[in-house]
């Protein structure tokens, strides 16, 4: 009589096993991601200062946040940084990808050179550019040593221009990656249409403008989503490159959140700023992931 019961148990175990195996990961995601998000969002409505506390204050922290000059600067910097970073990366990435699409000799050597910055830590990138752009020892000093005495390049020390040095370093790090995304798109385009258009006398310019670039829409979309989310998350690079300075000239939401939460003991406001960062990213990522996962069916 025992055998059928055993077999039954075995079958049922086999039915449940896959879900059982998946459950630890799922539980981790539910607690450490979604539970934590709820907790932080909740804190943003409380009077938490140095430690979490649970006195409800409604939208008070958000009102305070939006009245803070410091936050305004961080958001403005993010706007400038994100727009330039995304535009320049896309422009460089697309241009390089189109170049590589012309049967370039040595592609196998050049491509890894363009992509290696992606393997580096932002702290390494920040350190390298910090000293390269430093007027005392970097580019300016080098030009002086080479005899160009009047050369001046102090953007990294200049409140009005420091944010552009963050753009420069970030573009250096990721533009090769954007190139790879576009190149994958270009390599997937059907040559027959191009040949037909060439027979009809279309110029290269028109081929790219009318046929090829419109077909790269998925690559543009991926590049946009990836770059936007990298831009919003930018933290390490600023810490290593400028530390948010000079003054607050390169402060971004991520650095704002960290300093308000952990050094200024304004945890409620810090949580509110983190919530806004999350909502911005969610507005971009959720529709994207939704469409990507749907298409697979």
């Amino acid at each position, binding site marked *: 009589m025992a055998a059928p019961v055993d077999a039954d148990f075995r079958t049922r175990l*086999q039915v449940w*096993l*896959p*879900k059982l195996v*998946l459950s*630890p990961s*799922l539980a981790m*995601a539910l607690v*450490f*991601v979604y539970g*934590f998000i709820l*907790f*932080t969002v909740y*804190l943003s409505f409380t009077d938490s200062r140095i430690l*979490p506390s649970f006195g409800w204050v409604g939208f008070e922290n958000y009102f305070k946040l939006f009245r803070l000059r410091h936050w305004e600067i961080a958001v403005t910097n993010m706007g400038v940084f994100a727009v330039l970073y995304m535009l320049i990366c896309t422009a460089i990435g697309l*241009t*390089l990808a189109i170049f590589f*699409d012309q*049967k*370039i000799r040595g592609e196998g050597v050049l491509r890894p*050179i*363009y992509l*290696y910055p992606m393997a*580096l*830590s932002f*702290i390494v990138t920040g*350190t390298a550019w*910090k*000293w*390269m752009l430093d007027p005392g*020892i970097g580019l300016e000093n080098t030009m002086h040593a080479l005899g160009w005495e009047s050369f001046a390049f102090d953007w990294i020390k200049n409140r009005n221009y420091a944010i552009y040095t963050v753009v420069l370093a970030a573009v*250096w790090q990721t533009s090769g*990656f954007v190139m790879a*995304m576009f190149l*994958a798109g270009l390599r*997937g385009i059907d*040559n027959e249409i*191009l*040949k037909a258009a060439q027979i009809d006398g279309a110029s*290269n310019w028109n081929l790219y403008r009318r046929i090829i670039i419109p077909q790269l829409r*998925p690559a543009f979309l991926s*590049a946009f989503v990836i770059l936007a*989310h990298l831009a919003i*998350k930018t*933290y*390490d690079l600023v*810490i*290593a490159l400028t530390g948010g300075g000079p003054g607050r000239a390169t402060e971004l939401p*991520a650095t704002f959140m960290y300093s308000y939460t952990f050094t200024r003991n304004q945890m409620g406001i*810090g949580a509110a*700023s*983190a919530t806004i*960062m*999350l909502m911005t*990213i*969610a507005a971009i990522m959720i529709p994207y*992931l*939704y469409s990507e*996962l749907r298409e*697979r069916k």
Partner: protein
Amino acid sequence: MAAMQQESAIRTSNAARVLIYLLLLLFAFFYLLPLFVMGVNSVKPLSEITGGNMMALPEIWTLEPWRKAWSEAQVGVQATGLKPYFWNSIKMVVPAVFISTVLGALNGYVLTKWRFRGDTILFGLMLFACFIPFQIVLIPMARVLGIFGLAGTTWGLVLVHVVYGIGFTTLYFRNYYAAFPTELVRAAQIDGAGFFQIFWRIMLPSSGPIIVVSVIWQFTNIWNDFLFGASFADFSSQPMTVALNNLVQSSTGVKEYNVHFAGAILAALPTLLVYIVAGRFFVRGLMAGSVKG
């Protein structure tokens, strides 16, 4: 896949090609420049940097900055060099990469070969975790690590990196196993093979490439992490990136740029070596993280 390999039908004139090669070389120069600057200035005495030209080769070659960066530079409050932090990073990266890859492989296997209602939504929930701004979890994570006695420990960091890494590893294995013939799994099932037997005997032996992708991606990401290391680690567990930042930002004494450059290369070396040896797989991981189609 054949379409991916094809070459463009576009023809360009010779003049245009010369221009293209020139621009491509110019960009190669741009990308290599920081590496070159770090390299040459890490083998120069300090006086040649402050008094000279950043682009020039050293007049006196020296490995002193490297030795200093590794074993005696002032990092934070202690003059230990970067050595202990390098080992902290290793001790954190190895288990975190291993655990997240194993979990990712199992999850990918379940999500493709043992599908059930709502599995795509669950996967979406896990995947979204990779993209959140981690500022949103810093406060509760600090509390939870404290409660479990993991604050400031390497194991705390391992936990954090596993939790926020499995989304990507699951993605890799899920996409890879989706192309694996399900009939083979069903046939083995009919022959009486169980869940783990099928995974061990059928799936795993053909998972080589994707394991490499996952390991390299996780290794690079975790090694390069700064935010979690800066938030949750103390001296006994601080990773290399945090130590490098402390070294460079320290405001006491003379700024030893050559030591900073040597330190930066030391921090970059492991991921750079992996990239040189297996860059192909790294790029594949990058692409899978962006273009899931």
